[in-house]
């Protein structure tokens, strides 16, 4: 077990590294992140820097390029990155496809993909949801028919975040529709420049393009690109979903964000008045702080019980509910503290390197888009309704 002094030294080491490597445009991308998906170019540049240091994938086993940190070190790393306002690495590479290949890939697949996942030379998008298969993922229809050593894909995917930036996709496709819905699904890798593949970005509530639809017309993919067994992609997806739900440390990002918000609340205006003097703000901040700490220590408590690389199982549902709902609460408190500053639409000022001046105090450029994007948190990766049912199932099975 790592004792407190080691952790403090580790924290200092992280701080120093961040201070030394936080290039202005990367910091600007962090400051202008309005969701889990930071501005693409800059966050990938940051990933490359981290990869060079060996810190791009804190949760990966050491043999595949992980730094070998324990859970407390990982939490400190996330926290300090958030405190320094670094952009958060896009989850698709390191948190999604990486663990899937580590868990289910062949030696060849690991050698072929993992290094480029770490550096970001490849950027992956996730082809899971379909227009008719959201919460009910198992009903997906995107068809892959075998022709010799290839599958031929027809159908479509939706909610494919950053598909317009990706050169690779991992997808769930239907290879058999005769049996139980969960059977006959295959987890497959493909190139985004494959002939017959078309991407259509969708305009989000915040005025930005994050989500895409992807259409497949006779797209050919080698059978060698299957991860795990043909028709058994559901096992890979389920494994990954639990990673996606449980692995991320919402608290590590939110606690520093709360500290910044509190600083603003404690700032006196030219008449000497602070937001923290208003009863409503006091009470909201106070309750929010409790929820944040409860989240942080739930994440730490749960994760500290897991060995390295363990899958949190049904507890992941609880972490997902708690993490996303505290995030939403934070976004609501923040947008209320922002008040009038949250009202101007500032899509252009939000672009990294934009010459457009920010309107307002400058403390709340992202408050409204962050609030809006946070609404998706209780929808993505299995709605919180689904999570509650899963959690209940686990409770009732005891």
């Amino acid at each position: 077990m790592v004792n407190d002094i080691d952790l403090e030294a580790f924290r200092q080491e992280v701080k120093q590294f961040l201070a030394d490597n936080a290039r202005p445009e990367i910091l600007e991308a962090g400051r202008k992140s309005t969701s889990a998906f930071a501005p693409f170019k800059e966050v990938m540049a940051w990933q490359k820097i981290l990869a060079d240091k060996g810190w791009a994938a804190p949760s990966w086993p050491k043999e595949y390029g992980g730094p070998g940190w324990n859970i407390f070190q990982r939490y400190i790393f996330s926290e300090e990155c958030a405190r320094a306002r670094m952009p958060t690495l896009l989850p698709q590479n390191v948190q999604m496809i990486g663990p899937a290949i580590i868990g289910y890939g062949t030696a060849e697949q690991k050698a072929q993909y993992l290094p480029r996942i770490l550096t970001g030379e490849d950027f992956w998008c996730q082809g899971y949801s379909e227009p008719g298969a959201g919460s009910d993922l198992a009903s997906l229809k995107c068809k892959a028919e075998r022709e010799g050593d290839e599958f031929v894909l027809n159908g479509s995917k939706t909610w494919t975040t950053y598909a317009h930036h990706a050169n690779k996709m991992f997808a769930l496709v239907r290879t058999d529709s005769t049996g139980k819905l969960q059977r006959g699904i295959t987890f497959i890798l493909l190139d985004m420049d494959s002939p017959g593949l078309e991407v259509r970005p969708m305009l989000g509530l915040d005025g930005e393009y994050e989500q895409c639809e992807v259409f497949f017309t006779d797209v050919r993919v080698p059978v060698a690109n299957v991860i795990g067994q043909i028709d058994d992609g559901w096992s890979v997806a389920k494994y990954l979903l639990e990673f996606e739900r449980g692995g991320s440390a919402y608290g590590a990002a939110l606690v520093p964000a709360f500290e910044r918000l509190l600083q603003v609340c404690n700032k006196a205006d030219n008449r000497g008045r602070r937001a923290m003097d208003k009863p409503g703000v006091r009470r909201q901040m106070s309750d929010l702080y409790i929820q944040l700490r409860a989240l942080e220590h739930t994440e730490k408590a749960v994760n500290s019980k897991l060995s390295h690389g363990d899958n949190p199982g049904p507890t992941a549902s609880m972490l997902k509910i708690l993490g996303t709902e505290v995030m939403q609460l934070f976004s609501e408190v923040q947008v209320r503290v922002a008040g009038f500053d949250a009202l101007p639409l500032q899509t252009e000022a939000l672009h990294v390197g934009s010459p457009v001046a920010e309107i307002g105090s400058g403390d709340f450029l992202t408050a409204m888009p962050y609030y809006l994007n946070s609404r998706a948190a209780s929808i993505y990766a299995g709605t919180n309704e689904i999570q509650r049912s899963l959690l209940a199932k686990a409770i009732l099975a005891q």
Partner: protein
Amino acid sequence: MHYNYNSEQDLFRDSLRKLFKQQYSYEFFREQIKSKQESAPAIWQQLLDFGLFALPFGSDFDGLGDDPGYALAAMEELGYGRVLEPVLATILMPGALLNAADNSSITNGLIPQFMAGGSTIAVAWQEAAAGFKPEEMATSATAEGDEITINGEKVCVLSAPAAQQLIVIAVDQLQQANAYLLDADAPGVTLTAYQTVDGASAANITLQNVVINKSAQLFNSAPLHKLQSVLAYIHLALGAEVVGMAERLMEITAEFCKTRFQFGQPIAAFQAVQHRLADMQIATQKLQSLFWFALDAYAAGDYIPVNMLKAEIGASGVAIGQSAVQLHGGIAMTDELSVGAYLKRILAIELTMGQREEHLESIAGSLSGELEQAPA
């Protein structure tokens, strides 16, 4: 006490609903947003043909404003149809201030001109730090001789970029709040224009040593009382808009839940979905009930119930918007459906003219006997 519009108001409402249904589709709304136009000339002209300029003015000016029901019915329909036309910003707000004004040197000439569409006026009310209560404004109006000098900063002044004149709320040397009329292009007036998150045209305005004539002051007697009355009118109008939005969100969402299939059945078959719909309905009913209560009290000169309506928007109103998004799922996170546009508007209203928590504090002040309305 009544819980519905009168039959004439209902007819008026039906006409507006028909107009918006036929000519103000969500596709049309999206185009307006994209082109950053809050008002579409063709729609605006039809609204004027309905006589919308009569809404805030009393019978002295041949207006319909002695009964606020007409204006509120219009606001409800603007909410229901998620219509961007700036009725509140360019008709009701300046109109209500002019209607309440007792400075005939202004009103005699300006009101007929305004009602004929001959003057566009924006109201500069809110301030970043001081909020929305007239008596707490930091913007100052310093009288000296025949002149008044205005200094201050106003935020989120709706429809200001296209306005010819501004009415500015400010406090004089005695800390007495009043309203002042000035030209939008007067020396010392600087606008920072923007589109708001809910598609309105707005500006933050700096007023630096803006000199106007003493006669530009709207209220001679009981200015705070009149400003509080207009403020309550604005709160009611926002309440009506939210009621309209809540009603429409209920319809849209119930319909979606019946037609969206997951796990082999419409999602309306799931108890979690049913109960969320039930909660949305209850929240909608609460807003409706508080709206009629507030309207009745407003007519009797009691504005605390209006605070209650505005406060509940920040709870029930926001909850309805958020629930509608949640029940629609991912598609509501895009601009393909109108749901998100409703949520953005509801949230903007919550952030406008006093948030829930500020109104809760006002209500508490009244309950504890500390707070009183300004005397008439």
